């Protein structure tokens, strides 16, 4: 865990869960797995608070526990999982594009609550949707459950590991200090058969005909909800790997669309969709797909003939990008998508783009040149890139000082004399990717800090505007006159209003920027993971 990662995790925990959780979480990240007593002792917080903090972290899948030898339970924090908090908006947005508002709210609820039972999710989402709908309409539970089932079928949500049923054994073993959770592969996406009947309830603050009745009934309802829910114990969580797979597919499709045309990208999208369930997320190649299968699975709107499809597939396979490869000739031609190569190309394009923006297009030319040719001497770099010697030297040294390019020495003589050694420039892509990843983490930490600073600066103003809004709302509820409302609104002067506007704009900009940097993080992380798995 680099310093930058730890700082960022600490900021995220503090922002989402508060100071105490932040302290415990950061301590766990720094020190690795620790038993409960050690955490209490080292952080100096009371046992009670530590327990509560750990509960929160475990609920959100940020900390896991394990029984070690001698029966000690140790808790371990997962730094990478904490960093995923940054990506929550992207997950929610993806669910919205695929499954519209219902899907969006389901995923949002699951992400915000860590783990939930299906019935709880359905109920909450229905309530929220009902509030946004027009008067008189309500959201039916069945619609929400069907969306939930679809999410489970496409593996976007999965069951959490459960406590297995204790074996019926004669010898009464003392229960282990911590339960070991396990889940069967088959059961992971199995939706329990629930009979959820009902409609979303609107949270009403004003009197209504129907509201008059439920009010006395309300205490009874809460008592009713104490009865066992049918799917107690079956908790669901969002499957982040599946979302990552989806992002990866999206970036591959857009890369193909940029390089070739729309139809080719649609074909690639079809191929990826067909391999969604069959290929594991870290495989370097998808399963081979025959051209006949692809033809059958093309989206309905696309009526291109079989020959045209074959031509496109041949073009894709021959393209220098090498995203698609031909692996055989049966079934009209078997094609695979080379996932590792695709991720590597995307990561290299990211590196090149960063070099271009930071140092200029001539430096980018030199960088691409050394990337392609692997090892080059200084003179060769000048000749190939057609850049005058002085400038080329300057740029190479600048890239060298930023550690994006490294030198490889090849001595001619055993004494390594500098005048008799070859010095070759080379790019070590993995280490360059890791270095830029660290830079991304620090950038996001900076952006978050700036955002908090901006909010703190204008705290007084924000509080004032909140007070004014509360007064306005209460006066509107009690039916005040237009003139009075006007008076209250004028409590905030025009320049203050402008300042508030500016603040809102800045905070939004910083937020958007965090999400953009997170996209870079995703590409670089996928590349490093994929390379490490292959190595």
């Amino acid at each position, binding site marked *: 865990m680099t310093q930058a990662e730890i700082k960022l995790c600490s900021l995220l925990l503090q922002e989402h869960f508060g100071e105490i959780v932040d302290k415990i979480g950061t301590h766990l990240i720094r020190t690795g797995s620790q038993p409960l007593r050690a955490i209490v002792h080292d952080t100096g917080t009371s046992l009670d608070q530590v327990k509560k903090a750990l509960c929160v972290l475990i609920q959100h899948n940020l900390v896991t526990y394990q029984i070690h030898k001698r029966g000690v339970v140790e808790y371990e924090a997962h730094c990478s999982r904490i960093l995923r908090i940054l990506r929550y908006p992207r997950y929610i947005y993806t669910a919205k594009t695929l499954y519209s508002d219902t899907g969006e709210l389901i995923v949002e609820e699951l992400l915000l609550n860590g783990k939930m039972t299906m019935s709880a999710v359905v109920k909450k989402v229905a309530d929220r949707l009902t509030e946004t709908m027009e008067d008189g309409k309500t959201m039916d539970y069945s619609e929400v459950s069907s969306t939930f089932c679809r999410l489970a079928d496409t593996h976007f949500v999965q069951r959490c590991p459960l406590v297995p049923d204790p074996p019926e054994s004669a010898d009464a073993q003392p229960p282990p200090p911590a339960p070991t959770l396990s889940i069967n592969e088959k059961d992971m996406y199995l939706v329990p058969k629930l009979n959820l009947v009902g409609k979303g309830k609107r949270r009403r603050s004003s009197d209504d005909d129907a509201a008059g009745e439920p009010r006395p009934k309300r205490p009874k309802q809460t008592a009713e909800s104490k009865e066992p829910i049918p799917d107690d114990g079956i908790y669901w969580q969002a499957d982040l790997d599946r979302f990552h797979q989806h992002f990866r597919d999206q*970036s591959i499709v*857009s*890369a193909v669309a*940029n*390089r070739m*045309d729309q139809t*080719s990208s649609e074909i690639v999208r079809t191929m990826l969709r067909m391999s969604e369930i069959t290929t594991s997320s870290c495989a370097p190649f998808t399963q081979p797909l025959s051209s006949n299968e692809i033809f059958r699975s093309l989206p309905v709107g696309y009526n291109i003939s079989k020959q*045209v499809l074959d*031509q*496109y597939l*041949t*073009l894709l396979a021959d393209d*220098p*990008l090498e995203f698609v490869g031909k692996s055989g000739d049966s079934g009209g031609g078997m094609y695979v998508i080379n996932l590792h190569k695709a991720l590597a*190309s*995307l990561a290299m*394009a*990211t590196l*090149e*783009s*960063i070099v*271009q*923006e*930071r140092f200029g*297009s001539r430096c*980018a*030319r*030199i960088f*691409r*040149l050394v990337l*392609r040719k692997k090892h080059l001497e200084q*003179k060769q770099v000048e000749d*190939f*890139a*057609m*850049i*005058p*010697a002085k400038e080329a030297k300057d740029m190479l040294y600048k890239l060298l000082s930023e550690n994006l390019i490294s030198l490889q020495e090849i001595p001619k003589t055993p004494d390594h004399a500098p005048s008799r050694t070859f010095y070759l420039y080379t790019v070590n892509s993995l280490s360059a990717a890791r270095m830029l990843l660290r*830079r*991304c983490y*620090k*950038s996001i*930490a*900076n*952006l978050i*800090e*700036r955002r908090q*600073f901006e909010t703190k600066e204008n705290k007084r103003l924000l509080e004032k505007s909140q007070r004014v809004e509360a007064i306005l709302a209460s006066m509107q509820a009690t039916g005040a006159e237009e003139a009075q409302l006007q008076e209250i609104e004028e409590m905030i002067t025009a320049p203050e209003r402008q300042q508030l506007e500016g603040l809102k*704009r*800045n905070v939004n*900009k*910083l937020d958007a*920027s965090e*999400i*953009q*940097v*997170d*996209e*870079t993080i995703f*590409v670089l992380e996928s590349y490093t993971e994929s390379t490490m798995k292959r190595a």
Partner: protein
Amino acid sequence: MAEVKVKAQPPDADPVEIENRIIELCHQFPHGITDQVIQNEMPHIEAQQRAMAINRLLSMGQLDLLRSNTGLLYRIKESQNTGKMKGSDNQEKLVYQIIEDAGNKGIWSRDIRYKSNLPLTEINKILKNLESKKLIKAVKSVAASKKKVYMLYNLQPDRSVTGGAWYSDQDFESEFVEVLNQQCFKFLQSKAETARESKQNPMIQRNSSFASSHEVWKYICELGISKVELSMEDIETILNTLIYDGKVEMTIIAAKEGTVGSVDGHMKLYRAVSPIIQPTGLVRAPCGLCPVFDDCHEGGEISPSNCIYMTEWLEF
């Protein structure tokens, strides 16, 4: 009676006659003649007289002495040169010969010293002498600007010394290269555009968006922006820089020997492409481009809270 055997000189034993005969023989065999051949021609001349005649011719600079596997060869020297070397001594002739052998690549003064085994001062004097007589000239090498190579006065320096089409007077012509770069790219881009708009089946579309290096070369020649004659290899180096810019991709196809522009049975095709990703997220934040990134931390002189780059960026 004591007969004094007078060695009757045969009529052509006259030294000048011998020399002339040898010269005639050399003209007959321009590749050179060996001692054996002279002996066969004039069997009545003694070896001593032969050797004297040959030495005289050599010192006069009319014959060249060469060594071959079979022995020594004598070759007639071109008549123009014989005029120049009058008044030069042997050392100068030696140095001149070394420089002449270097052809149009030229030779460095230190190499002349190794080959002739003459001391440095002598070499310098001789070189100055020859230069003033306008027999040799010094050309600055483009690779190492301090190094001077010497070659014969009337020879054109080789490309490796002057740098070829991209260098004019030892200066790398960057604007020229830039202009060529942009022109080639525009040509390929427009070709790709027309191919895309033709909307035929994808194979034809793609094949028509390619341009071979020969086509690009013809286009640039016709544009006439270059005062220097450019060869196809020059255009290929320019196209390679476009590949390293990420704007163009290349494929090699096998082509029949006779088709225009094919080299050794294959052709290089180039095509304009667009980048596969948009500029990445990190560079959209000020931190991605910040020059003092490593010095920035909370509570320091440079921190996110008082970052001037962020303030400017937020005001856009």
